[in-house]
């Protein structure tokens, strides 16, 4: 019998459980998105998940690996989930399909599969889509009702759902109920940042201050602005859940949000011509929360040592802000995280943990005890 070393206890969650919890943590944001913008995200998610499972199975066949074993780690579903959040609602079906295929094949398996990829696969897929199909990737078609508070149930009404379905599958326009996509309001927004050009105050805050109508009613009134805020709050809640479950450590989210918050606070000049957006806007609108809690913390592509994690988070936060203000693409989270990924292995080497009993410049050993 070959020697087997201790320990003989196993207490941790498995990789599959970790990934399942991450999927679970995405649910609040998913629910908010569906409530405000209709079933566009769900369609994206279904298409992306199916493609992801199919592609990974294909890779397993090619690499002579067990398909069930590889798929049972759920990681490919997390990739699909994160990517579908980044794809505009109402994008034609081949957008999520090709994006996910690229993410899984090029972003993940070319490097050797889970654990070996240098870049976050979802962001690789997203950026590939963004540079290949800029038009489709910045045109968010949502049922027009979603933008006006007047028609409450519209995005989730049958009509709203059909519109989204026809947007995703253009070939259905003739077979089901005639072309209804004119009812969709297409407006270019990678994020609401374009629409509101950095100047919008918080819609939820407005709803809270507005005493004339009940808070919940105003806060959940459908408007893109409020919707994005809620989705971000959903990710924030999901992120707190992951922190509580100790799936992620606090270092990366705190560093990303902290550096972004400080930068936007420093450069925010209310009323001035060069308005760069309030800290609230930078943190709670756009993809900041999903980036900070779900994508930047992807274990495979982030550093492991706490100090390296802080540096990595700051790097991403600074990159998000700089690219938002100076870059051509407004939604800079994807690029910022890919940039951070590039530095992750080096940061682990540069800023390792302090080994017990080893003195260093930053942490000298204590000389005498103080009884």
């Amino acid at each position, binding site marked *: *019998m070959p*020697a*087997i*070393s*201790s*320990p*003989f*206890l*196993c*207490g*941790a*969650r*498995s*990789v599959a*459980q*970790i990934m399942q919890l991450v999927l679970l943590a995405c649910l609040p944001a998913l629910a908010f998105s569906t409530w405000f913008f209709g079933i566009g995200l769900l369609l994206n998610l279904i298409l992306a998940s199916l493609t992801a499972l199919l592609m990974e199975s294909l890779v397993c066949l090619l690499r002579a690996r067990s398909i069930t*074993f590889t798929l049972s*780690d759920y*990681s490919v579903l997390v990739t699909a989930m994160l990517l579908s959040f980044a794809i505009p609602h109402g994008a034609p079906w081949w957008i999520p399909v090709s994006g996910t295929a690229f993410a899984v094949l090029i972003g993940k398996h070319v490097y*050797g*599969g*889970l*654990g*070996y990829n240098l870049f976050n696969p979802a962001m690789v897929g997203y950026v590939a889509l963004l540079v290949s199909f800029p038009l489709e990737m910045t045109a968010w078609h949502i049922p027009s009702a979603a933008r006006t508070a007047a028609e409450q149930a519209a995005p989730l009404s049958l009509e709203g759902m059909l519109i989204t379905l026809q947007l995703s599958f253009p070939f259905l326009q003739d077979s089901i109920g005639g072309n209804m996509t004119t009812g969709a309001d297409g407006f270019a927004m990678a994020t609401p940042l374009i629409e509101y050009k950095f100047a919008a105050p918080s819609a939820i805050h407005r709803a809270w201050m507005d005493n004339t109508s009940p808070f919940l009613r105003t806060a959940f009134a459908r408007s893109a602005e409020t919707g994005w805020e809620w989705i971000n709050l959903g990710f924030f809640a999901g992120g707190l859940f992951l922190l509580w479950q100790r799936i992620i*450590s606090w270092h990366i989210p705190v560093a990303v949000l902290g550096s972004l918050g400080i930068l936007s606070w420093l450069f925010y000049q209310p009323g001035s011509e060069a308005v760069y957006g309030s800290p609230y806007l930078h943190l709670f609108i756009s993809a900041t929360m999903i980036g900070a809690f779900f994508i930047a913390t992807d*274990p*495979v592509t*982030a*550093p*492991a*040592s*706490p100090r390296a*994690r802080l540096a990595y988070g700051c790097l991403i936060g600074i990159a998000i802000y700089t690219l938002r203000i100076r870059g051509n693409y407004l939604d800079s989270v994807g690029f910022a995280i890919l940039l951070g990924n590039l530095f992750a292995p080096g940061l*682990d080497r540069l800023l*390792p*943990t*302090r*080994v*017990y*009993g*080893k*003195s260093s410049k930053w*942490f000298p*050993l*204590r*000389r*005498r*005890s*103080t*009884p």
Partner: protein
Amino acid sequence: MSPGHQSRRPGVPALHRFNGGIHPPVNKSAALSHAIERCVLAPRLILPLAHYRGEMAQAVVKAGDHVRRGQLLAKAGGKLSVNMHAPAAGQISAIREHSFPHASQLPVRSIILDTFNPQPLGPEPKAGGHQRINQEQILAKIEQAGIVGMGGAGFPTAAKLRRALANGVQTLIINAAECEPSISADEALLGEHAEEVCQGIAILQALLKPDVCLIGIEDSKPGAIAALEQACCNRNIKVVVIPTRYPSGGERQLIKILTGREVPSGRTPQDIQILCQNVSTCHAVYQAVVLDQPLLSRIVTVTGGALQRPRNLEVPLGTPISLLLAHCGLPADTHFQLVHGGPLMGFLLDDVDTPITAISNCIMAITAREHQAPAARRACIRCGFCAEACPAGLLPQQLYFAIDQQRHDSVASQGLFDCIECGACDYVCPSNIPLVQYYRAEKALIQDSHRADEQAAYWQQRFEFRQLRVKAGQQKQSQLKIQQEIRAAVARSKAKRAQREKSEPQQQARREK
């Protein structure tokens, strides 16, 4: 890093926190709910001569000898081995290879002792005061008794004490933390023999004269804490209750918790004027100094799902494990796996007749049900859970990659030899990578290569010496040859002269004629 919460008790120093650690499920109550039981004397005791890091004790008895209880069987064979005594009266049946508690499961030379039944009555051990004897006498008694560190490492106590005495001891730390999830031998000992343990500690205090003496004990042991506090109330010993977090009982981690200091990498606590001793060792010191009794038995936790009556047993050293299992109710034809030591740092044994030694604090008989088939291993996802759990502050995943890629220099510089093999990283790994085994194998590989280098240097030296000698021999021979030639030449000339001298008178005579 920051000083931890203030302890409840007055006069007790603030606690500190070590990095990482885990909270495995604790499983001690089954064995602890009963008093310590005495294990019956085995008909055959096996006393392995191997000691710390493979140094061997020298047997002073031979097969066929009759020995009485406590008689010296083997003498320390070097600095790292200790004396061994007969745990019971009997006859030496053989000195041969036998399995012993080691991860390799390879046999080692052992004294096999067939015990007499019934045991002849010996003189009762009588308590004598240690106050009257001096430091050197205390040390001699401890050395003579063959005491080793009973927490698991098995380092000879006398050698450790001498080293500490040479450096001076500022803080004496008594390790009662016993953080491994299934081991309760020390807790049981404290529950019943706290006074004796404290007497043992007092002896160490008298020997080492430390400024402070602290007992570190986890807050999960209320009974032992109460017993200790009662025994310590009139002594200059502070009982410090520490939070339960594995591996708080690791020497370096306990020192960090109690003093806030860290033992420098590659050094020992003695180098920073701290000495750590296990409570069982203190009990053995009490027995050796006060009762004049060598180390003959120890308390062993016998537990595991295969057993009907998990217990803490007082076991004579050398008792085969099978006897312990029988005592604790092992149903016939149960399929089980034997673990020596705790579930996080122990090792597997296959031979149930492996003897108990001074380091055997726990024996577990684990059923297959308790430990379901290992979940399949996956690739490392670099989650960093291992780094969060590592009490040595290492980056276990980076170490693993370096080992996997055979970057041996990088492995050493990343602190492989600071790894205490506690198993916390393995425990939390979601991919089920056997990290600790990688570290153990890599450590052994590096140590082996150092050993090979040393051996090569030694061979080189011998070879060169031989060449020198051969050359010198040749020179000597050639010199001898020259001398012989000279001698031969001298002899020849002498012979010629002699012949001439002999012939000259004849010639003269002829001429005269």
